[in-house]
C-alpha cells in the first residue's frame, strides 16, 4: 500500500526551483534512504514532504491512512535548542499534541504510551531527566520517542546520525531496523552510507539537476550509485 506519492514535482523556495520533475513513492513497510550532496535539495525535500513548504509544481499525495500531520518527524538536533530547560517526558509528550482533541494537557493513555515508548528505547529510567543534560545518543532517542508519539506508520529522520559517534549511530540504526521490522515505514536523509547499504530497500539520490529513485540493488548498479560508493570508499 502506498503511503506517500509525489508525481512530477518541482521543489524549491520563493519561486526558485532546486529539484524538477521528481517522482517517487513510499510504500508501507518501506525503508527509504535519501542521499545527495549538500545543496542538492534534501532539506527542501524534507520540508515539502512535511508540508512546511508547498511544492512549486505537482502534488504530494498521502494515502493508506497516512495524514500529512501524522508523520513522525525527527529533525536534525542542530535545529533544536540544546540549552532548553525541558524534561524527557515533556519532550516526548509534545509529539502527540497535534493529534489529540483535548483542550488542555495529556490523557493518561497518552502518558502510558509515552512511558512504554521511552521504555522500549531504553530511556525508561530517564523520564524526568533534563533534555539538555543528556548525551547525544540519549537526546536522539528522546526525539525518536517524540516522533513515535506523532505517528503509527511513518518515521521521517533528517540526518539522525549527525554528531553521534559510530557506536551510538549503529545503536540507533539497529533500533530503526527493529521498528521497520515491526511494520513502521522509514524515510531517512543521511550522509552515512551504512544504513543505505545495509538497511534501505529503496534509495532516492538527489543531485544537481538529476536524481535516482529505485530499489537499492538497482541503485548500487547504476552510475550514480557507483559514484556514491566510490566517494564513501566502498568501491571495492
Amino acid at each position: 500500500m502506498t503511503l506517500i506519492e509525489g508525481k512530477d514535482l518541482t521543489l524549491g523556495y520563493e519561486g526558485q526551483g532546486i529539484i524538477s520533475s521528481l517522482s517517487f513513492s513510499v510504500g508501507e513497510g518501506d525503508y527509504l534512504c535519501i542521499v545527495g550532496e549538500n545543496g542538492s535539495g534534501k532539506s527542501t525535500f524534507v520540508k515539502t514532504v512535511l508540508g512546511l513548504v508547498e511544492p512549486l509544481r505537482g502534488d504530494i499525495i498521502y494515502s493508506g491512512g497516512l495524514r500529512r500531520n501524522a508523520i513522525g518527524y525527527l529533525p536534525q538536533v542542530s535545529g533544536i535548542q540544546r540549552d532548553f530547560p525541558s524534561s524527557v517526558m515533556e519532550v516526548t509528550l509534545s509529539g502527540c499534541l497535534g493529534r489529540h482533541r483535548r483542550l488542555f494537557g495529556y490523557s493518561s493513555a497518552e502518558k502510558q504510551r509515552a512511558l512504554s515508548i521511552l521504555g522500549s528505547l531504553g530511556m525508561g529510567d530517564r523520564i524526568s531527566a533534563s533534555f539538555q543534560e543528556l548525551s547525544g545518543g540519549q537526546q536522539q532517542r528522546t526525539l525518536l520517542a517524540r516522533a513515535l508519539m506523532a505517528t503509527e506508520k511513518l518515521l521521517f529522520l533528517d540526518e539522525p546520525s549527525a554528531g553521534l559517534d559510530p557506536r551510538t549511530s549503529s545503536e540507533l540504526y539497529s533500533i530503526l531496523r527493529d521498528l521497520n521490522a515491526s511494520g513502521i515505514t522509514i524515510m531517512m536523509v543521511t550522509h552515512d552510507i551504512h544504513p543505505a547499504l545495509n538497511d534501505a530497500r529503496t534509495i532516492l539520490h538527489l543531485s544537481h539537476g538529476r536524481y535516482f529513485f529505485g530499489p537499492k540493488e538497482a541503485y548500487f548498479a547504476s552510475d550514480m550509485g557507483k559514484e556514491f560508493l566510490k566517494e564513501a570508499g566502498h568501491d571495492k
Partner: protein
Amino acid sequence: MISEMLSYPFIVRALLAGLFVSVAASLLGVSLVLRRFSMIGDGLSHVGFGALGISALLSLQPMAVTIPVVIVSAFVLLHISGKSRSGGDSAIALISSSALALGVIAVSAAGVNTDLNAFLFGSILSVSRTDSLIAAAVSAATIFSYLVFYHQIYSTTFDPSFAKATGISTGRYTSLLALLTALVIVVGMRILGSLLISSLIIFPAAIAMKLMRRYATVSIAAAAEAVLAFIAGFVLSYAFSLPTGASIVAVHMVIYLTASAARSIIILARERRAP
C-alpha cells in the same frame, strides 16, 4: 508599617495591578527568552514610550494610542527578528532609540504638564482606578491564555519545525505571544515605566532557568520569583521612599546574582563529587 501602607487605596490598587502584570510578564518571558526574543520586549517598551509622548502632545487618551501602536510594532519586530538574525538586532535597536527620541521631543513639546520621569521610570501615583482595572484584566486574560495554550506554546518554543509538521499552527501561537506581550507591556508601563518594564519579562525567566531544568518548573519558578521581587521591591520603596520601579528591578538583580552564585556552587560541588 505594612498595614499603614495598605491603608492607602491607591497603593493597594497599584500593588494588585502590579502583581497581575508581574505574573503575566514572567510567563511570557519564559517563551520570549528561550526564543531569543528578549530584545523585542525592550524594543516594545520604547515604542510604548514614544506613543505615550505623542498622545500627551496631541492630548489623546494614552491607552487608545499606545495599545494599537505597540501591538502593530510587536508584529513588525517579530517579523524582523524572524527574517534575519544579525539584521534583526540592529533593526530593533534603531526602532527603540527612534521611538525614544520621538517620545522625548513630543513630551517636551507638550510642555510642563507632562511628567517625563513618570513616563520613563513609572510612578504608582499615576495609576488611576481605571488603569489598574485595565492592567489587572489584561494580565488575567494573558495568564489565562498562557495556561490554556501552555502545551502549544511549549511545543512552538522548543521545536517550531516539528510542531508545524505535526499540525500545530505555530504562526498563530507566535502571534498570540506577540499580542499578549504588547498588551502586558502597555499596561505595565504605567507602574514600572518604559525603561524598566522589560526587566519584568526577562529577569524572572533568566533566574528560573538558572535554578530549574524542566519547562513546567521553570514557568512556576519564574512566576513565583516575579511575585516575590514585586512585593519586596514595593515594600522597600515604601519603607525608604525610593522609586518603586527601580526598587523592584534592583530586587530582581539581587535575586539574579544570588541565583547565579548558587548555580555555580552547585556545579562546582557536582564536579567535586564526580571527578
